[in-house]
């Protein structure tokens, strides 16, 4: 009996130690990756990064055109993807709560949420780049917008479902039409959650590279023309990191640091917002 008891206790301690080790591994990677990024990226961080264009190999330069390109692509994608996402989520939570369409859309949306983003790039290449005859900023923005939609749909639906029905009933009883009830009462109650969704979508697309490779492509020069190829930070990182030139690689590290800071800040803000929401 005693040996059996000791064996069980031993197995338990072993398993518990291993799970602590697992947690240490998980946290260790995060710390390791961030430490390397800061260590490698900070040394290249100077004013030129924000004021000069991406250079040819061997000369000095910065990431200005890539940063601006990324901002334009991300901003446009959010402008295009958010309304569609919010409307679709609204239909699912407000009008067709138990309808067949909602069930199907929810399922398909969840799949789009984790679908490989490179496939989205191929899709936009097939439908837009081939039709327009060249790579363009607008094609890149559309590709990113397609990634935004499922994120926003999911959070909008979830947040609207959390709004208590009594609120809607109270507004309806005052004679407000349905769309007033939704836009003035339900949206207002779900606002923080929906903003969180948009922030998460921005975080998600600001590091996306694969769908931009053959839609927006890249551009060594300053370009705000939506019908021409447009540079973006992730694609510049991809190109520069795989190049043999050391100054390009340095710029890639600096760009990586910038993106990571942005993404982590966005996800932390989103989390803080939703945490505050839960307390109230």
């Amino acid at each position, binding site marked *: 009996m005693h040996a059996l008891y000791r064996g069980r206790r031993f197995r338990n301690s072993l398993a518990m130690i291993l799970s602590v080790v697992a947690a240490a591994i998980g946290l260790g990677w995060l710390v390791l990756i961030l430490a390397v990024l800061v260590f490698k990226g900070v040394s290249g961080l100077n004013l030129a990064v924000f004021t000069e264009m991406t250079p040819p190999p061997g000369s000095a330069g910065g990431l200005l055109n890539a940063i601006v390109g990324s901002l334009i692509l991300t901003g446009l994608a959010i402008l295009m993807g958010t309304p569609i996402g919010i409307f679709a989520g609204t239909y699912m939570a407000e009008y067709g709560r138990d309808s067949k369409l909602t069930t199907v859309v929810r399922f398909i949306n969840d799949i789009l949420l*984790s679908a490989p983003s490179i496939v989205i790039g191929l899709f936009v290449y097939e439908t837009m780049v081939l039709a327009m005859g060249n790579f363009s900023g607008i094609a890149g923005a559309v590709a990113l917008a397609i990634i935004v939609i499922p994120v926003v749909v999911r959070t909008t639906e979830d947040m609207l479902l959390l709004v208590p029905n009594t609120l809607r009933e109270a507004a309806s009883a005052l004679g407000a039409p349905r769309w007033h009830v939704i836009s003035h009462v339900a949206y207002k109650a779900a606002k923080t959650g929906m903003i969180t969704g948009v922030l998460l979508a921005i975080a998600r697309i600001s590091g996306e590279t694969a769908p931009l490779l053959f839609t927006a492509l890249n551009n060594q020069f300053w370009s705000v023309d939506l019908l021409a190829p447009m540079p973006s930070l*992730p694609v510049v990182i991809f190109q520069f990191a795989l190049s043999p030139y050391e100054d390009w690689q340095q710029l890639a590290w600096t760009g990586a640091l910038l993106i990571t800071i942005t993404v982590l800040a966005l996800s932390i803000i989103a989390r803080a917002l939703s945490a505050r929401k839960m307390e109230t």
Partner: protein
Amino acid sequence: MTERTILRSAGSDRSRTLRKFAVTDAVFRGLTYSAAVAVLVLLGGVIVALVHGSYPALSTFGLEFFTTQAWNPVTEHFGALAPIYGTIVTSIIALILAVPVGIGIAIFLTEICPMALRRPIGIAVELLAGIPSIIYGIWGLFVFAPFLQQYVQPALIATFSGIPGLSSLFAGPPYGIGVLTASLILAIMILPFITAITRDVFETTPPMLKESAYGLGCTTWEVVTKVVLPFTRVGVIGGIMLALGRALGETMAVTFVIGNAHRISASILAPGTTISASIANEFTEAIGELYTSSLIALGLILFVITFIVLAAARYLLLRIERRLGN
């Protein structure tokens, strides 16, 4: 004005406003409905576009496309076997590495970790999921691969050189980049998904079940393996499949470290390729309809594989959610 006309005009005002409400209501409802339908159309559009784009390649090579590993842009002969093989092998190795660690972290978070630390550690693990794929790629190429090349791979080759079977699995010069490196990076990337979902489904175990097991004198490990895991099995498998779906489609991180070689090697230290890495590396350089079309066909295969895996994952997770609802 008499009292009657005032009432009448008020009545017509009222009906006019009501009519306006009815119209705007219908417009708003129509807008939301078409957005919901647009999500479906989007998925349909992706499938149609990929099928259309891959038609030239599939009609030229037929079934042979799936069974040959030839990939020759000069003679325009293409086969998808090497990238399919690489995609599946890297994902499976990644799962083998990440599943125990991910479940271990979930056990830590739900059973051992002090309450005050649960949220911060949970968030930290989830932040790992938010880091863009390209960051893992550049880190893998410049930090992780050289480390593996210098310290880990020579040791692996030396250790397994005398053992039949394993010696061919760990053969060849230590390049640093290759199938194993890609699998390791994938494992790190999918770890947070496995952890987050496993933790969430673990938390669905009714406390009473766990308490009764503890009351019988079970150790924590016995509670986890005999109560929590059997109760949440479906959800854990769903989470693992979801992670598998991510691993199959992961592009940038793999592209940096896999070596992009269109051949199947017995050694997991050798360079290989995956579907998404091939597309990312070669698409903009692909000249000629057949080359482009072959790459799009690869995309179609990837989409079909991930669709099946993700659909299965969602179905399993839905079953857990339904049980919670009841």
